[in-house]
């Protein structure tokens, strides 16, 4: 062990302390939940991006993942259920220099907030959206949601879910997102890399992270520990950057395809277009 590492172990401080709000820890996440690791790599990605922390705003909706904004020591906004994205658009267009990151759950972003997601992607809003997909509504006690796969057991699907889930990367790609990636919480290095790339992007960038929720998803689906869910991911995950997003649907028996599926350059953003409109409409000012 190096001297630096020794010092770190003896220190009462964490190297990322300044990025977390004093007095907000301990967090509310359950043992085995992956939101801690995801928060950790999100902070690292923001830190390494070199963006002035004053210019970073983080917005969440409601739910377990929705709590993340409130732990981060940036301008942070914990909004209403499903509404993080239009709030982020208001923040984003009022300062073209501002980097706005939305982090929220699958129910928040794709059930109650689904309409906002597709329209923000369509208009190429200059925001980064991270969805932590845990396949269920965790905070309210494990109900089925828009990402619950067929045959999955949840409190409102006691006989197994009947409905097809959203193929989220395909939804994002088909609505116009300029960056789309999916990884599992097991592979935090790739998650961090995806966060870094998404943050560096101009336009609507999207990362889906498949998370572990032992408490309300795992217990009902023979995966009652965080470790078991990560092992399940290790077993089932196939990395394929070239996958057609139409083929990355998640179901009970097929492999889970992860990778960077979309990375488009130079598509004008909503903010670019609004600024161009200001210039055009003022051209006759003389």
């Amino acid at each position, binding site marked *: 062990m190096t001297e630096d590492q020794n010092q770190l172990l003896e220190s009462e401080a964490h190297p990322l302390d300044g990025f977390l709000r004093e007095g907000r820890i301990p967090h509310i996440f359950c043992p085995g939940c992956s939101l801690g690791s995801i928060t950790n790599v999100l902070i690292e990605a923001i830190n390494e991006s070199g963006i002035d922390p004053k210019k970073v705003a983080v917005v969440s909706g409601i739910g377990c993942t929705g709590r993340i904004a409130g732990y981060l020591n940036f301008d942070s906004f914990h909004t209403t259920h499903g509404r993080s994205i239009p709030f982020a658009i208001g923040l984003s267009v009022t300062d073209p220099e501002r980097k706005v990151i939305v982090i929220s759950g699958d129910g928040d972003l794709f059930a109650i907030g689904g309409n906002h997601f597709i329209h923000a992607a369509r208009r190429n809003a200059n925001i980064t959206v991270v969805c932590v997909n845990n396949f269920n509504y965790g905070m309210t006690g494990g109900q089925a949601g828009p990402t619950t796969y067929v045959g999955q057991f949840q409190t409102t699907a006691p006989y197994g879910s009947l409905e097809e889930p959203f193929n989220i990367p395909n939804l994002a790609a088909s609505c116009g997102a300029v960056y789309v990636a999916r990884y599992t919480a097991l592979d935090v290095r790739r998650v961090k890399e995806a966060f870094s790339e998404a943050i560096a992007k101009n336009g609507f960038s999207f990362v889906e992270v498949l998370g572990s929720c032992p408490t309300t998803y795992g217990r009902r689906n023979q995966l009652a520990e965080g470790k078991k869910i990560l092992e399940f991911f290790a077993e089932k995950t196939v990395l394929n950057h070239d996958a057609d997003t139409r083929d990355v649907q998640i179901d009970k028996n097929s492999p889970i395809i992860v990778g960077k599926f979309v990375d488009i350059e130079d598509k004008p953003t909503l903010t670019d277009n609004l600024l161009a409109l*200001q210039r055009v409409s003022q051209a006759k000012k003389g």
Partner: protein
Amino acid sequence: MSKQKQKFLEVSTGEHFTTGNHAAAEGALAVGCKFFGGYPITPSSEIAEHMALRLPQLGGNFVQFEDEIASIIGILGASWGGVKSMTATSGPGYSLMVENIGLGMMTETPCVIINVQRGGPSTGLPTLVGQQDIMQTKWGAHGDFEPIVLCPNSVQECFELAIEAFNYAEKYRLPVTLLLDETLGHMSERLIIPDASKIGKVERKKPKDSPEEHLPYKPDDDLIPPMAVAGEGYRVMVTGLTHDERGYPDLNTKTQDKLVRRINDKIRLNKKDIIKVEEYMLDDAEFAIISFGSVARTAKGAVNRARKKGIKVGLLRLITIWPFPNERIEALAEQVKKIYVPEINYGQITREVERSVHGKTEVKGIFKLGGAIHNPQEILKEIEGDA
């Protein structure tokens, strides 16, 4: 100044012949609104159209969102981005907005919502007048808060009260509703826009302490906390959860009591500053009409006709609907034999007037259920029956 150059100015000084909707939009621009988020709905759409035309010329932004929910939350985001922001809608759209008006109340976010009322419930009478959103603007969202709602009755006042709405929003830190109706929104009359130097502008209080010391929800003596916005280095923390002075969620009865009491009391204790009424021929009145919005115009006609017949009637016109001018109305109840309340709904303001008079006089609602304004004769007939 040429019309060509004037369109690049926030304040379109001069004489205009225009509609209530356009006048309200011009009022918003004159007081410095720089972001509009909205969704088309009759009879308010002309406001969005006018903002789409004018905002880019003034270095502002117009975003047509996917629905009214996105519109209200978008303007809350823009307000935290540091600009004055607004949306416009009608009853059904306002219904979709109320949850996030609640978020605006809880997070103390300045912004303005214009609601051009039409007949309801539901899709109702999209192209015809109504005054049926009185209680929706007060009680629409869950939880306790004191909204500010202003109600103009002329094109000129649409302009002036749009400015006031922004000023109250900035001063008291809350979403303020400007309540028009279809008749007012669509009718044209003279509008005089004063010189830019005559436009009174209020800006939100800014923190004087450093980011390290700053507590974003610690109020001053006036119960209003100074507002740091995103990008100023204060690392603001904003949540719709019950929060302490740091802005941190703190879910207990004590913090809830302190916070909810304060966001109500900051308005209740300033009712004198906020409540505006117009009094017409009330000094010697034996009967009174209480009215608001476009109906107050025909109510004034009824007063004039009654006076010609020797009946001593006066008019109290409510310009501020919420907070409700209950003290003025109680005083009036001690003076007059009867109060008439013509309104285009089934008794919303009438109920509030009844509550205010404490049985000291008789209150008679004159209701139209939507679609048309009262004819002065209809109001006069009621009074003549009693005089």
